[in-house]
C-alpha cells in the first residue's frame, strides 16, 4: 500500500466527518422512505421498543437516582452560608429535566443499545444474513434499521421522563434525610420552578439523541467488514461516535431550545 503524504492524510482526516455526515443523511433518507411502503411490521417495532425501552429501565433508574442525589448534596454543600439548600428542588429539577436527564440517559442507555445494535447488525452482515434478506426480496432498511431508529427515538424521551422523575425523588430523599427539608417544601419548590418548556426542551433533546444513537449504530453495523474483529471495532466506534454526537448536538440543541422556548 502506498504511503500517504502529510497533506493527503490531512485531507483524508478533514474529509472523514463530511463522509460520515453524508452517509448518515443518505441512510436516514432511505430508511424513512420505507415508512411510505408496506409492509409495516408493527411486531418488529414493538420488539425493538421493548429492547430499547423496557430493558434499559434499570440502568436509567440507577443513573438518574444517584445523579439527583449528588446534585442535591453538591448544591447544599457548595454555598451553605446563603441557605442554598432551600432551593435544591429548583436546582435538581431544572438541571435534570433540561440537561442532565436527557444527556446522561442518552450516554448510558445509548452506549448499551448502540453497541448492541452495531454488534447485531454487524454479525448479520459478516454472516451473510443481510445479503440473505436482500436475496429474499426483503429490504434490510425496512426490516432492521427503521424499527431500531423509531424505537430509540420514541423510547429515549420516555426513559428520560421516567429518569427525571426518579432523579427528583433522589433529590427529595437527600433533602429529607440529610438536609432536614420538609418533603412538601421540596416538592412545592420542584413544581413551582419547573415549566412545560423545560420538559419539552428535555424531551426534544432526547428525541434527537435517540435518532443519532440509532442511526450511527445501524450505519456502523451495516458497514462491518472482516469478521469478528470488524464487529468489535465497529462496536467501539459506535459507542464513542454516539457519545460525541450526543454531546456536540446537545450544545446546538440547548441554543435552539432557548430560542424556541
Amino acid at each position: 500500500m502506498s504511503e500517504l503524504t502529510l497533506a493527503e492524510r490531512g485531507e483524508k482526516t478533514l474529509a472523514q466527518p463530511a463522509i460520515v455526515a453524508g452517509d448518515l443523511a443518505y441512510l436516514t433518507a432511505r430508511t424513512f422512505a420505507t415508512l411510505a411502503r408496506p409492509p409495516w411490521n408493527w411486531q418488529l417495532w414493538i420488539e425493538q421498543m421493548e429492547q430499547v425501552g423496557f430493558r434499559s429501565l434499570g440502568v436509567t433508574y440507577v443513573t438518574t437516582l444517584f445523579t439527583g442525589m449528588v446534585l442535591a448534596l453538591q448544591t447544599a454543600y457548595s454555598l451553605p452560608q446563603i441557605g442554598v439548600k432551600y432551593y435544591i428542588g429548583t436546582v435538581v429539577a431544572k438541571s435534570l429535566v433540561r440537561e442532565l436527564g436527557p444527556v446522561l440517559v442518552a450516554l448510558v442507555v445509548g452506549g448499551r443499545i448502540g453497541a448492541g445494535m452495531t454488534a447485531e447488525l454487524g454479525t448479520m452482515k459478516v454472516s451473510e444474513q443481510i445479503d440473505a434478506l436482500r436475496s429474499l426480496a426483503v429490504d434490510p432498511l425496512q426490516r432492521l434499521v427503521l424499527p431500531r431508529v423509531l424505537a430509540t427515538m420514541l423510547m429515549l424521551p420516555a426513559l428520560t421522563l421516567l429518569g427525571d422523575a426518579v432523579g427528583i425523588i433522589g433529590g427529595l430523599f437527600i433533602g429529607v434525610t440529610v438536609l432536614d427539608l420538609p418533603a412538601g417544601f421540596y416538592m412545592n419548590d420542584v413544581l413551582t420552578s419547573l415549566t412545560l418548556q423545560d420538559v419539552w426542551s428535555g424531551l426534544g433533546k432526547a428525541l434527537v439523541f435517540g435518532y443519532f444513537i440509532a442511526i450511527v449504530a445501524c450505519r456502523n453495523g451495516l458497514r462491518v467488514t472482516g469478521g469478528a474483529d470488524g464487529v468489535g471495532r465497529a462496536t467501539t466506534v459506535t459507542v464513542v461516535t454516539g457519545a460525541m454526537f450526543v454531546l456536540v448536538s446537545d450544545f446546538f440543541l440547548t441554543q435552539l431550545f432557548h430560542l424556541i422556548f
Partner: protein
Amino acid sequence: MAAAAEPVFRVRGLTKSYGDKRVLDGLDFEVFPDECLVILGRSGTGKSVTLRQLNGLERPDSGSVVFAGVDLCTLSERQLFPLRKRIGMLFQSGALFDSMNVHDNVAFPLRAHTKLGRDEVAAKVQEVLEVVELPGIEEKMPSALSGGMRKRVALARSLVLQPEVLLFDEPTTGLDPMTADSIAHSIAAARDRAHTTTVVVTHDLHLAQTVASRLAFLDEGRFRFVGTWDEARQSDDALLGHFLAGQREDA
C-alpha cells in the same frame, strides 16, 4: 438441446474491480432453462462475485445481466425485489437467521411474500424440510444444527417460494465427504423436482460431477472453458486439465 432455447440469463461484458484488482474482465455467458451450470475455478478467481451479479446482490462496473428480458444492472434495489422472488440463493455459510428457529427461517419468505395462513405455511415448511431430508426439526435453533444441516435448512428456505432459478455459492465447502455428497444429492433432487434452472459455484469436483449439465471454468476474470464434462475431459487447456486432475499448475 438446451442451448437452442432462449437463455434464462444472458451475461455480456461483465467487469468488476475491487481497488486495483480486476476480478471480472469482460465475462460473457448464458444459462439455459432447466440446466445446471457449474462455475469452477481456483479460490479467489471471482466465482462468488459472478454468482452475486445474477440476482443483483453486487453491481458490475460495466456489462449487462439480462434475466426475464430485463437488464438487472439498470434496476434499483427496490425494482430488483420482484425478480429476486424468482431467484433463490443458497449462501456459502447458509446465512440462516440466528434469532429464528428452523420453522421461522423456512417460513420467512412465505410470510414476507404470500398471504398464506398459519396452517398452510406450516404445511409448506414441513414439505420442503422433507425434500431436504430433515423432517421434524422445526423447533431447533440454527446454533443447534451441524454445518450440513444448516446448509440443508438454508436450501429448504431457498426452495419454499418455488423459484425458477437457484443459485448455490459453495454449497459443500467445509463439509465432510458424506455430508457433501448428501447436499449434492439434495441439490440434484430439488432441481429435478421442479425443473429448476441452477447455477452452482464450487471447486468441489464431486459436486460438479453429480449436478452439472455444463461446466464453466473461470480464470483471470474470464471463462477459459464452457462445455460439458466430456468436452472438459477432452479439452487441451492445460490449466483446466490440472484443475480437474487436482494437480498443481507446474506438476
